[in-house]
């Protein structure tokens, strides 16, 4: 019988099972949490007085793929200030805003995170995204394939393809890009930019195809729902960053007519156009809309002050933002009749009215959304701030006096334009555990992560309670990944390789009858070479696939990872 580890006497926060700060023992065997065993032969780890949660899950973080690597390549000056030396255990690396893959994995694990999901896998670039994530140690990963500006879908839509055909295409894409969900970015807008359109409202037609973002959202949300994929359509809405965009954001939520939909980095879509500067907070209205629509979830995309880089598939709005590039260099790309990207370095300044108000809007949304199961802690890494600022963000949410202290130092006009100072709410540890663990796992569709029940993967983080929540969440005492202790007293002690989570919905293979000639005629690569096989994902011996069932399937499959 394999060794059993017992975590003795910790204060457990496990919202998936309604456990709110109860003293419990946990048992780990073969990488899983097990029920109390009959034997006394266990290795004990003293966790008395310590806080125990499942490993944290970042459900939206740009950690792998073409635009991230462009960001890395174009920012040598940013890396040079943040280097990681090689040790006996760790490879060297660097990068503050856009860290190297190795560094990203180490830093996530050091903060008690055990999974991260790349939200913008361009299907044509999926192989690169997976190769980068494959070189990201310790944490589990996965991603959402981007559709909505790809010419194949838009052509299906103008030829009035039935929903079932679209479902087949969506399922085919999920399967062969090895993705966990579907994302849409500025629906149809990346395509519109290629036709020289510079904005695209929810009901505005793509100049060539005549389809609207609303049509695209409806088709894709329906497809994801009908396929039984757990993660709802992941939506980066229209008009990112445009003052006054809040009305369209609310219209987007209402317009989906009850289908599950996740609104990502909603802070960037919650702007009013009031006041002297025609820029104001729409947080109250946005939060109210979320509160009133049970089908809607959102992550915030909080901004924090300092240098970062914005990397997005939204070439249209990244082009628009290039005037703000700091330092003044930027990239925009049209990509393979599939999507696009824009990379714009950015420095958020606390004395700048707009930046300060963006900070306040994000926090207002966190504090005004009632249900922590439907709002998620993100900075849209690295777009709002690097993920390493999460402990600081948690302190802002949990500590009103700290929050108001920071608030009082920001641009005074922005302070006057925000109600943040009057909001009393402080997040509890239980709510943080929902937002960063149980809720995130449920949203992504990870049945055996984000909780501490029997049978769950033993991804566990143990903290020393500290009133300074930033300190507490920066340096856990222990982090276990699949049962292996990888962090002890804040330091990495072991480097493991996590799995890639995917879904493979059933579909009618006849979809390839139209895809095959489409690739042959129009694409620059062959259909067969586009597909990423399970074998390719696991060929290096350390890649491991976890295939989650859709609601129409049963069973949970693991492949690879023997080495």
């Amino acid at each position, binding site marked *: 019988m394999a060794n059993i580890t017992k975590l003795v006497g910790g204060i457990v926060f496990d919202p998936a099972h309604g456990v709110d700060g109860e003293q419990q023992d946990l048992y780990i065997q073969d990488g899983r949490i097990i029920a109390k065993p009959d034997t006394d032969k266990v290795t004990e780890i003293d966790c008395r007085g310590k806080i125990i949660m499942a490993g944290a899950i970042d459900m939206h973080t740009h950690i792998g793929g073409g635009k991230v690597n462009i960001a890395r390549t174009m920012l040598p000056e940013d890396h040079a200030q943040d280097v*990681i030396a090689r040790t006996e255990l760790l490879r060297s690396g660097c990068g503050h805003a856009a860290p190297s893959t190795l560094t990203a994995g180490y830093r996530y694990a050091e903060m008690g995170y055990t999974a991260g999901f790349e939200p913008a896998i361009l299907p044509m670039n999926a192989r690169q995204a997976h190769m980068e994530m494959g070189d990201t140690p310790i944490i589990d990963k996965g991603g959402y394939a981007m559709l909505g500006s790809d010419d194949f879908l838009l052509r299906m839509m103008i030829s009035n393809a039935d929903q079932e055909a679209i479902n087949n295409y969506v399922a085919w894409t999920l399967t062969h890009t090895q993705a966990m969900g579907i994302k849409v970015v500025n629906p149809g807008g990346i395509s519109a930019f290629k036709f020289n359109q510079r904005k695209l409202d929810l009901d505005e037609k793509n100049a060539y195809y005549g389809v609207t973002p609303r049509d695209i959202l409806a088709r894709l949300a329906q497809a994801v729902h009908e396929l039984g994929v757990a993660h709802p359509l992941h939506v980066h809405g229209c008009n990112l960053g445009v003052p006054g965009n809040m009305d369209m954001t609310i219209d987007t939520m209402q317009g989906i007519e009850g289908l599950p939909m996740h609104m990502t980095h909603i802070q960037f879509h919650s702007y009013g156009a009031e006041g002297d500067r025609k820029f104001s907070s729409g947080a109250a209205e946005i939060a109210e809309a979320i509160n009133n629509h049970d089908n809607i979830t959102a992550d915030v995309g909080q901004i924090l002050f300092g240098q970062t880089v914005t990397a997005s598939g939204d070439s249209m709005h990244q082009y628009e933002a290039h005037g703000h590039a700091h330092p003044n*260099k930027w990239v925009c790309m049209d990509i393979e009749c599939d999507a696009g990207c824009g990379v714009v370095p950015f420095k958020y300044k606390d004395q700048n009215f707009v930046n300060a108000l963006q900070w306040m809007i994000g926090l207002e949304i966190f504090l005004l959304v009632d249900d922590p199961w439907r709002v998620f802690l993100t900075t849209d890494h690295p777009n709002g701030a690097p993920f390493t600022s999460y402990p600081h963000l948690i302190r802002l949410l949990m500590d009103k006096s700290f929050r108001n202290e920071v608030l009082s130092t920001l641009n005074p006009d922005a302070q006057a334009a925000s109600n943040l100072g009057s909001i009393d709410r402080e997040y509890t540890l239980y709510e943080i555990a929902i937002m960063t663990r149980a809720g995130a796992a449920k949203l992504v569709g990870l049945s055996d992560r984000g909780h501490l029940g029997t049978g769950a993967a033993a991804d566990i983080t143990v903290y020393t309670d500290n009133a300074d929540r930033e300190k507490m969440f920066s340096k856990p005492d222990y982090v276990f990944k699949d049962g292996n202790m990888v962090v002890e007293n804040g330091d990495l002690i072991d480097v493991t390789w996590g799995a890639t989570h995917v879904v493979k919905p059933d579909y009618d293979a006849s979809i390839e009858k139209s895809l095959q000639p489409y690739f042959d005629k129009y694409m620059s690569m062959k259909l067969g070479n586009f597909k990423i096989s399970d074998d390719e994902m696991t060929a290096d011996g350390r890649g491991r696939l976890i295939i989650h069932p859709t609601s129409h399937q049963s069973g949970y499959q693991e492949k690879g990872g023997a080495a």
Partner: protein
Amino acid sequence: MSEPIRREDVASPFCGIASDDLTIEVSGLEVKVVSNGDAVTQRGFETPITDTQPRVNGKEVDLAIAVAKAADLLRASSQSVISGLATDVNGARAVMALADKSRAVIDHYASAATFRNLLVLQDTGWMTTTLGEVKNRVDLLVVVGSDIESRFPRFFERCMWNEESLFEQDIASREIVFLGKAPSGDASTSPAGKQAEVMACDSVDLPEVVSVLRALVAGRTLQASQVGGIDVAALSKLAARLKVAKYSVVTWAAGELDFKGAEATVQTVCEMIKDLNKDTRSSGLPLGGIGGETTANQVSAWQAGYPMRTSFGLGYPDYDPYLYDSERMLAAGEVETLLWVSSFDADVVPTEGARDTIVLGRSGMQFSSEPAVFIPIGTPGIDHAGQVFRTDGVVALPVQKLRDSGLPNVADVLAAIEEEL
């Protein structure tokens, strides 16, 4: 003799556009491109295997002995450089791990060309597009200072003169203008016989010609009537065409811009493209990616944060495109051990100048002076499977094992050397 084995939709790792529609026949160790080949891919696939045995100081040895010797040389070296770097993704991963452990500098043999682009990316950025977009959208292609077809023989066939586009464009109406250099052949001529326009100048005049074109696009008026032998009026017309084009593409092969300060010319082109995008759409298409150049830079960027010309000598990645230029280091006598990785082209041999040279090279490599260690290695896409990046840095193509040569791959040999350190 048995029938040759036929493989369809084979991807070529030998040129940056990575065509993946080749048909290949394999008979034993012999590989033949039977359709969609060109001079570059045929040479790449069809170069026969000659030597298969590793050598130490010219004497044939077992692989284990060659590996041990390579490890000894790296261990004893106070300044190692790993260059060439003509390999696939897994080979590049192994290079990174070994460089980190041996505190080496990494560089690629085509870096001189790469940095004409990278310095621009890191200074002001750019707006670019990819091969698939060009194929479906381009209405005006301007080729700056490059021939294209000698390095990328099928670029025009695959991306300009395809039979149809997604958007009902009349393909025959596409226009090509060569600015600075005339093409070496007729690959750019349309199937109906329409020849590309040529506005030739000496390469020494190209920076000025490109600057004038940018000024004209920006609406400036010039006193001069000629620049580099080209009429300003003609450049003015080209500027006007760029402004009315719906999706112009400006391309260049940095490897051909072989003059001092070429990065400034690339920058001028890229800033002109940004200016054009105020009103219409226009994109750059840097063509490169020879010998795994894109692959090496991509893997290095994601694992270390930096592209080529990064040193691990301080125990962490330190990037300096001047200081860690391997050619400069070799010429200055700064390199004790050079580890040269060259798995695509037997003609890509190490530069002299290191105290000791270790070569992981394609079978058949000839040296003017025998390296301390030579290990013949397999070629990705022929002797083993792998992934390679295309010029645009977006598409990574899977390449396949076509024959059973027994030649080891770069990743395994480097991992074995690392293990010995």
